[in-house]
């Protein structure tokens, strides 16, 4: 019973959000605000649970070292004090420092060194495979051409101009593929929502939503006509 009610509420929310495609309306705005409120509430509850499992329980079982990050965490709240706001800078500096260090390590190795090594390919694949050889040549040429597109020191004329043009086409092809995947992803989300509406108790909400849409359209039309008559 509770599940059915939940499904019907979810269906009403989905239809209210999609009603934006017809026009901006109060049902859409209500659900939008509901979503923001519920998401904020969920983050608060999850944070409390996380504090319980990663701080409170180990602390009460004798892991006293955790007092240090706990105090550092509390220090962040000094941002709300005009007089002592400088105190929050210490934990923030630590967070930024550690974050930057870790990101640099990851970027230098996982994203730069390994990726560069991957593009260093044999132009002729052994044992010979025509498709792999073609792929390797294509990868090498397009990587070099794309990098030359970002040479801004020299005017892009002559061989550099040709290379950067090839690079531009390579990027356009990549963006096209990426955009096509984005379209596919968006449709997948829509198909998922449609399936939810059609395969759960949410299906009973559809006629109600249709009636509401017809009434709203009729009301908007008659209001428009009234305004026209007044003018």
């Amino acid at each position, binding site marked *: 019973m509770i599940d059915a009610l939940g499904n019907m509420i979810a269906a009403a929310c989905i239809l209210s959000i999609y009603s934006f495609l017809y026009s901006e309306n109060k049902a859409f705005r209500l659900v939008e605000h509901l979503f923001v409120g519920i998401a904020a509430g969920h983050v608060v509850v*999850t944070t409390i*649970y996380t504090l319980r499992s990663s701080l409170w329980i180990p602390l009460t079982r004798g892991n006293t070292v955790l007092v240090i990050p706990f105090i550092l965490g509390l220090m962040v709240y000094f941002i709300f004090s005009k007089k002592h706001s400088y105190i929050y800078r210490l934990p923030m500096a630590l967070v930024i420092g550690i974050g930057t260090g870790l990101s640099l390590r*990851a970027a230098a190795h996982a994203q730069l060194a390994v990726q560069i090594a991957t593009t260093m390919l044999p132009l002729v694949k052994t044992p010979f495979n025509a498709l792999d050889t073609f792929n390797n040549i294509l990868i090498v040429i397009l990587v070099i051409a794309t990098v030359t597109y970002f040479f801004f020191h020299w005017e892009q004329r002559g061989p550099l101009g040709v290379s950067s043009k090839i690079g531009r086409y390579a990027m356009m092809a990549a963006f096209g593929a990426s955009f096509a995947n984005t379209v596919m992803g968006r449709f997948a*989300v829509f198909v*998922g*929502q449609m399936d939810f509406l059609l395969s759960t108790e949410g299906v009973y909400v559809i006629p109600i939503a249709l009636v509401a849409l017809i009434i709203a359209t009729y009301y908007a039309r008659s209001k428009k006509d009234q305004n026209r008559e007044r003018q």
Partner: protein
Amino acid sequence: MSMLSRFQKMNPKVLYLLVLVVVGLPLIRPINLPIGVSRYTELFHSQVESLKPGDVVLVSLCFASAKAPEFYPQMVAALQHLIMKKASMVFVCWLPEVTPFTGRLFTDLSFDKRGLKYGTDYVDFGLIAGTATAMAAFARDVHKTAPADVRGTLVGDLPLMAKVKMATDFHLLMSFISIYTEDFIGQVQTPYKLPLVTGTDGVSFAGTLPYLASGQIRGILNSMVGTAEYEKLLKMPGKGTSYMDAQQLSHVLIITLIVLGNIALASTRALERSRRTKE
């Protein structure tokens, strides 16, 4: 007004209605269009297939909850395979919004009815806050970073976790990820050279491909199509398969509209040009 210019000025609401019909009808009455299997999905499948009973898999969740229609069927298909392989699973969420999905998975896949014991066969750590920093710390020392699970049980009291002290104790990393992909690869996979398979959404798929070429990722499930392909490999049709008719027909509609739109634009321009030359 000519047919072409009328097409160009078509009310977008007509297009929305067309999309609604094209997506809705195959969901009500499936037409079972054929589905192929891509190399990316085959690679993902073969990685899971190579697991031995008792191997420990880190199942990591890191995506926006709005992407659930893409990720949830992927997780259902992949976890069914893990259960079939009798692998042990450690669940970790890197974002607060994905935490409800683990509980839903345990219920929908009937973990209890299948005889999977919490603490022995699977463990859920819930949210580990801090993204890149948390990922790095978790990979270095699981017990220190996650001292208790989502139920409040101390990590030392969980029999499965006696086998897992750090990232290298996992036999496979399985990540359902749309954001912080670079962080997960940079902090967990690459430093410890672990096999990683990922489920991605359509938007991030193209950005994930270079990591497949470099071997940092060993297999990818791409959005809904990846799920359908995986279900085909498992011979267990599920949500992914049932969605594919609607997905494929919607793509046909989009391609048709793009082609027609371009023909209409080119024809209108040609007509205008010829009118100007006549004048």
